[in-house]
């Protein structure tokens, strides 16, 4: 099941700039974003699926923008790897990366994200955030955020956290009568909310499996290209719900 086909609309916009290969479980992509263009990438990795997501984004024209959002929910023995390089090569470009996920079971998650700001890329704005929740003792999350900055007039930040579900939140919800399993579901949705694609919740809820979505807009191509998400009924919410129930025995883990 190569999920790369969902990127086809992007290919139609700028095929000459795009080379990538897909396999059952890995994806390598190079995106070149030119002056005035905006690239948006969204990844959702659902339970039961291992993924290698390897993305290189080159911001090559002044004022280019790239935004990457990813969420993962890994409940069994999955291996999920993110390798993201955001390369600011031109001045005045802006990029954001938000990667949030929840690891349970024996899942192994690795995040390796680098922001590179070239000497000429003044007035760069680049932000990267990676937040992870670990639910079980056997789950492993490793995060390596990195900054390489060769220009002096830039705004950059990165942050990474690995933690547990907040017990105060859980108690607050339960004290209002929300049963523990449902409270944990709400908590996970709350944690993932920054990376659930905005205005696209419907599509996420009906996504049949893990997916990637790419949109590119530019002044030259005024029409916004958006890929549709494939259809088997599979709700992210119910997915998180069964996930929180299956992991609730670990709620008191310190």
């Amino acid at each position, binding site marked *: 099941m190569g999920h790369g086909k969902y990127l086809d609309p992007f290919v139609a916009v700028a095929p000459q700039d795009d080379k990538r290969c897909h396999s059952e479980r890995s994806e390598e992509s190079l995106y070149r974003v030119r002056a005035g263009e905006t690239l948006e990438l969204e990844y959702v990795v659902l339970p039961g699926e291992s993924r290698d997501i390897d993305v290189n984004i080159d911001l090559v024209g002044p004022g280019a923008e790239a935004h990457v959002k990813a969420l993962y929910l890994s409940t069994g023995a999955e291996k999920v790897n993110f390798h993201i390089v955001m390369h600011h090569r031109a001045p005045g470009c802006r990029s954001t990366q938000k990667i949030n996920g929840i690891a349970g079971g024996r899942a192994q998650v690795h995040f390796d994200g680098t922001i590179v700001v070239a000497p000429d890329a003044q007035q760069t704005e680049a932000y990267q955030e990676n937040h992870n929740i670990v639910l079980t003792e056997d789950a492993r999350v490793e995060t390596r955020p990195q900054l390489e900055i060769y220009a002096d007039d830039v705004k950059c930040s990165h942050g990474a956290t690995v933690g547990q579900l*907040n*017990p*105060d*939140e859980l*108690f*607050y*919800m*339960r*004290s*209002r*009568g*929300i*049963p*523990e399993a*449902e*409270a944990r579901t*709400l*908590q996970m*949705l*709350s*944690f*993932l*909310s*920054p990376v*659930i694609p905005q205005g696209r919740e419907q599509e996420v809820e009906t996504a049949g499996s893990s997916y990637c979505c790419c949109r590119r807009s530019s002044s030259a191509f005024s029409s916004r290209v958006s890929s549709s998400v494939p259809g088997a009924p599979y709700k992210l919410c119910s997915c998180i719900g069964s996930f929180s129930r299956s992991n609730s025995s670990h709620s*008191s883990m310190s």
Partner: protein
Amino acid sequence: MDKLLEIKNLHVKIGDKEILKGVDLTIGPGEVHAVMGPNGAGKSTLSAVLTGRPGYEVTEGSILYKGENLLEKTPEERAWAGIFLSFQYPIEIPGVTITAFMKAAVNAKRKAQGLPELKAGDFLKQMKEKMALVQMKPEFARREVNVGFSGGEKKRNEIFQMALLDPQLSILDETDSGLDVDALKVVADGVNSLRSPEKSAVIITHYQKLLEYVRPDVVHVLKDGRMVKTGGRELIDLIESQGFDQF
């Protein structure tokens, strides 16, 4: 039923430290009790144990609520049985709107009572009514729970939740802290409008501000883990003029 809540000889530890050292407290239907005491007396521990917060160990004593052992119930079961805590520090839940949060809470309680879920229209109507009661603007329905709220807005949100969940025993933990006079009046009016011959409340506070507006029937002084004095409203003035050292 002449007793809604009956606490006897309650001893509570956090880790190795004993915080409550034999508390007795009996509350009848319709009664409002104030529990006053200096910082560190154990006031918040009392509210935590009543609502089943994890991390507190009851080593001795008992709590009966409507004649049943409260200590073996989960926090959500206590909520379904009609216990509500207005938090001293309400918790922020990003990504969850007040509407979604309260819908989950109201319907969970209805389910526990064997009632069908409320229709969306009826629920929203009730929400609107109760928000108006504490002068919350309608747009708060779509705000994330407590995210970016001022201190006063958080406390009003607590009383709104209390009104919507319609508890039989409300525990107000330092609800007056951090409120200016106007917000205090709004909160007090909300609490007073919920008073009835069946409903009781425990107001936990270390000063008398809220008690000027919500007048308690009984006043207790909690100090060093024990109820050291119980009386009427005259105790409030005594504490106001002479502090807690006299007890």
